[in-house]
C-alpha cells in the first residue's frame, strides 16, 4: 500500500495532528481520529473523577466505623462512582476512542460514514457530562446507579431527574456511535475487504454497536418514565398507585445487562488483535471468534432477569434466565479457548500490550466463572447484594474491559501519537495494575462469601483485615493508572518518533503512516489477503522491506 512512505522519515510529514492548529480546528473537526482524541481526553477526565469517588469509598472502608463520611454521603459516593464509571467512562471507552480511531482505518475507509454525526455524538457526551458534573456538584444522587423504584421516584430527595437526563443525553451519544459503526462497516469497506477478512476488532465493534442501537433506547425511555413519574407523581412504577416496581427492574436491566457486553466486547476485540500480533500467528478459529461476538450480543439480551432472582420474579422465569445466563458462558469460553490455542506454539513477545492481554484473559476468566456462581439460583441467594457481586463485576469491568482498553492504548499509541512510549516503564505499569487489581478485588470475593453486604459504610470488626488489604490494593492500582497517563503525556513530546509499523503487525491501520494523514491512506487500499497473515509477514525473505503483495 503506502510502503513508499516508510523509507524516508522527514521531520514533519503532514498528518492529521499537524494539518491544522488551534482550538477551532479540534472543536469543529469531523476527522474520526481527532474526535477519538477528543473522546480520549474527556473520558480520561471522567475516569479520574470516578476514581476519586472510588478512593473515598475505599478510605471509608479502611475502618469498621463511619469515620470519614456518614451514611448519606457514602450512599452518594458509590452512586456517583457507579454512574460516572459506567455511563461516562466504560461504555464510551474503547468504542469511542479506539473504535473511532481504528474502525475506518481497519476497513480501509477515509472516515466513518457520518462524520458530522460522529462529532455530534461527542458533543452530546460532553453535554451529558456537564449535566452530570453539575448534578454531582449540587448534591448528587443516592440511589445507587440502578435508580431502583419506588425509592428513586417517591422517596429520595436527591437529584434523580437531572442525573437521569444526563444519562439520557449521553445515551444518545452512544446510540449515534453504534449507528455510525454499523453503517460504516456495512457500506465503507475497501475493495477486497470481505466480511471474512475483517479484523476481529471490527466484528467485536459490530456486535457492540448492535447492543448500543437496540439496548440504549430502552434505558432512555425508562429514564423518561422515571423522570415523569417523579415530577408529575404518576404511578407507573409505584405499587401504592397500582404500578409495578419490577417492571422498572425489567426495563432497566434489559439495557443494563447488555451494557456489560458493550464494555467487554470491544475489549475482547482489542485482546484478539494484540494476541495475534505478539504470538505472531493467525487467530485460531477466526470464524468462531467472529461469531462468538455476535452470539454474546444476542444471548446478552436474553439474560437480564438474573439480576432479579431475589426480587420476587416467578421461579419458572428464574429457571429460564439462569439457564440462558449459563448459555452466555459458551461463546465467552470459545473466545478464551481460541486465544489460548492461538498462543500455543506461538512465538510470544512480552511487550506491554501483551502483558495487558494476558491480564485480561486471566481476570476475565475469573470474572466470568464467578458470574456462573451468580447465575446459579441457589448460590445467588447466598451472595446476592454482597461484596461477591462487587468483586465479580469489577473483575469483568475493570479486570476485563479496562485491561483491554489500556492494552489497546499501548498497542496503538505509536499510531495515534506518532511516538513510542517507554517500554520498560509500561511493562512495570502493567504489572502494577495486575497486582493492584487482584489485591483490591480478590479479598472482596471472600468478604462477600462471608456475608459482607454491599452499599454499607460500616461493617463488623471481623471484616477489617480483608478490607484493609482491599484498600491497600486500590492505592497500588491508582499508581498503576497514573503511570500510563504520565508517560503517555511525556511521550507525546519526548518519545522517540514511531515507525509506521513498530510491532510489524498485520492490518491496514499499520500500512499507513504514523500518525496517519487526514484521509488515512494515500490511495484507496485493495485487500487481497486474509486477516492476521503473520506467516506471510514473518516469512524470511520478506524480513526487511514491507511486504509487496
Amino acid at each position: 500500500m503506502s510502503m513508499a512512505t516508510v523509507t524516508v522519515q522527514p521531520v514533519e510529514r503532514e498528518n492529521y495532528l499537524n494539518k491544522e492548529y488551534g482550538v477551532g480546528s479540534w472543536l469543529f473537526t469531523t476527522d474520526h481520529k481527532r474526535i477519538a482524541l477528543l473522546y480520549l481526553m474527556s473520558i480520561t477526565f471522567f475516569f479520574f473523577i470516578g476514581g476519586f469517588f472510588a478512593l473515598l469509598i475505599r478510605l471509608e472502608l479502611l475502618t469498621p466505623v463511619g469515620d470519614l463520611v456518614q451514611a448519606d454521603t457514602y450512599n452518594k459516593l458509590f452512586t456517583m462512582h457507579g454512574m460516572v464509571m459506567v455511563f461516562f467512562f466504560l461504555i464510551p471507552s474503547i468504542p469511542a476512542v479506539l473504535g473511532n480511531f481504528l474502525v475506518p482505518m481497519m476497513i480501509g475507509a477515509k472516515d466513518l460514514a457520518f462524520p458530522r454525526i460522529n462529532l455530534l455524538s461527542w458533543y452530546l457526551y460532553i453535554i451529558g457530562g456537564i449535566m452530570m458534573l453539575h448534578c454531582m456538584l449540587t448534591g448528587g444522587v443516592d440511589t445507587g446507579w440502578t435508580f431502583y423504584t419506588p425509592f428513586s421516584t417517591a422517596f429520595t430527595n436527591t437529584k434523580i431527574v437531572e442525573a437521569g437526563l444526563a444519562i439520557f443525553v449521553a445515551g444518545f451519544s452512544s446510540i449515534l456511535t453504534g449507528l455510525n459503526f454499523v453503517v460504516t462497516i456495512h457500506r465503507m469497506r475497501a475493495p477486497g475487504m470481505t466480511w471474512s477478512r475483517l479484523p476481529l476488532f471490527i466484528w467485536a465493534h459490530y456486535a457492540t454497536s448492535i447492543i448500543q442501537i437496540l439496548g440504549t433506547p430502552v434505558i432512555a425511555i425508562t429514564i423518561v418514565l422515571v423522570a415523569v413519574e417523579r415530577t408529575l407523581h404518576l404511578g407507573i412504577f409505584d405499587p401504592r398507585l397500582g404500578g409495578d416496581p419490577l417492571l422498572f427492574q425489567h426495563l432497566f436491566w434489559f439495557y443494563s445487562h447488555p451494557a456489560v457486553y458493550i464494555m467487554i466486547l470491544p475489549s475482547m476485540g482489542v485482546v484478539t488483535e494484540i494476541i495475534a500480533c505478539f504470538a505472531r500467528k493467525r487467530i485460531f478459529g477466526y470464524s468462531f471468534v467472529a461469531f462468538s461476538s455476535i452470539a454474546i450480543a444476542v444471548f446478552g439480551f436474553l439474560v437480564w432477569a438474573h439480576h432479579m432472582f431475589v426480587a420476587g420474579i416467578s421461579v419458572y422465569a428464574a429457571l429460564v434466565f439462569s439457564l440462558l445466563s449459563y448459555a452466555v458462558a459458551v461463546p465467552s469460553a470459545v473466545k478464551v479457548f481460541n486465544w489460548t490455542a492461538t498462543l500455543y506454539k506461538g512465538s510470544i513477545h512480552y511487550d506491554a500490550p501483551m502483558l495487558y492481554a494476558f491480564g485480561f484473559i486471566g481476570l476475565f476468566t475469573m470474572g466470568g466463572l464467578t458470574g456462573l456462581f451468580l447465575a446459579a439460583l441457589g448460590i445467588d441467594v447466598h451472595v446476592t447484594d454482597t461484596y461477591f457481586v462487587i468483586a465479580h463485576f469489577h473483575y469483568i469491568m475493570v479486570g476485563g474491559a479496562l485491561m483491554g482498553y489500556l492494552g489497546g492504548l499501548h498497542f496503538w499509541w505509536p499510531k495515534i501519537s506518532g511516538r513510542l512510549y517507554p517500554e520498560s516503564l509500561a511493562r512495570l505499569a502493567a504489572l502494577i495494575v495486575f497486582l493492584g487489581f487482584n489485591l483490591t478485588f480478590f479479598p472482596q470475593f471472600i468478604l462477600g462469601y462471608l456475608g459482607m453486604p454491599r452499599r454499607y459504610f460500616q461493617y463488623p470488626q471481623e471484616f477489617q483485615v480483608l478490607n484493609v488489604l482491599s484498600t491497600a490494593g486500590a492505592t497500588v492500582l491508582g499508581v498503576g493508572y497514573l503511570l500510563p497517563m504520565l508517560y503517555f503525556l511525556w511521550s507525546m513530546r519526548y518519545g522517540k518518533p514511531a515507525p509506521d509499523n513498530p510491532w510489524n503487525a498485520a492490518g491496514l491501520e499499520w500500512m499507513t503512516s504514523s500518525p496517519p494523514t487526514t484521509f488515512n491512506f494515500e490511495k484507496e487500499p485493495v485487500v487481497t489477503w486474509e486477516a492476521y497473515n503473520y506467516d506471510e509477514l514473518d516469512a524470511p525473505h520478506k524480513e526487511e522491506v514491507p511486504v509487496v503483495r
Partner: protein
Amino acid sequence: MSDSTVVGLHHEEQHHPELLHHFAEPQQQRDAASLGMWIFLGTEVMFFGGLFCAYLIYRRWYFGDFGAASKSIDATLGATNTAVLICSSLTVVLAVWAAQTARRTLLIGSLVITMLLGLVFLGIKGKEYKDKFEEHHVPGASFSFDHVPIPGHADQYANPRHAEIFFSLYFIMTGLHALHMIIGLGLFAWLLFMAWKGRFTPEYHTPVEIGGLYWHFVDIVWIYLFPLLYLIDRHP
C-alpha cells in the same frame, strides 16, 4: 435527534454538491444514508417498545379498568387522525416520486400538503387533550375517574388508580408520538426550503427519501397506538 441524521448530511452536501469526500461514489453515499435512517428507526422501535411493553402488562393486569378508561376517549377524533395520517403517507410517497422524476411543482405541493396534514393531526390531538383536561382525566392531583362502570360489568366501577395508569400511558405515548410529529414537521419544513431552492434532482434526492422513511415510521407508530388506546373496548 432524528433530524440530525439528515441535517448532518445535508450541510455537507451544500458545500460539495456532488459527493462527500469520504465516499467513493454517489450510490455508496445514498446507501449509507438510507441504512443509517433504517437503523435509527430500529432504535425508535426499541424506544417506543419499552412503552408498549408497559402498556401490555398493565392492560393484562387491569383489563376492565383499561377498557373503561379507553372508552372515555373520543374514538371519532382518533379515527379522523388515523385517516389524516394515512393520507399524509400518500403525499409523502408522491413527494419522493416527484423528486425522483424531477417534478418540482408536485414535490413542493406534496411537501406542503404533508405538512398541512401533520398540522391538522396536531390540532385534533390538541382538541383531544383539551377534552381530557376538562374531564379531569389528566393524571395528577385533580385526576378523577369515579363511578365509571367497567364495560360488560355494569355493577362494578373501574379503579381510578388503575385508570390513572392508563391515562399516564396514554399521555406519554401520544405525547411522545406528537413530539415526533413536530420534529417531522421541522424536517419537512427544511426539505421544503431545499426543494424551493431546486436542490433535489433525480440524481440527488436522498434527503426526501429518508425524510419520508421517518414520516412513515411516525405514521406506523400511530397505527399501533390507535387500536391500543382507542379501540380496545368498542363494540358495534
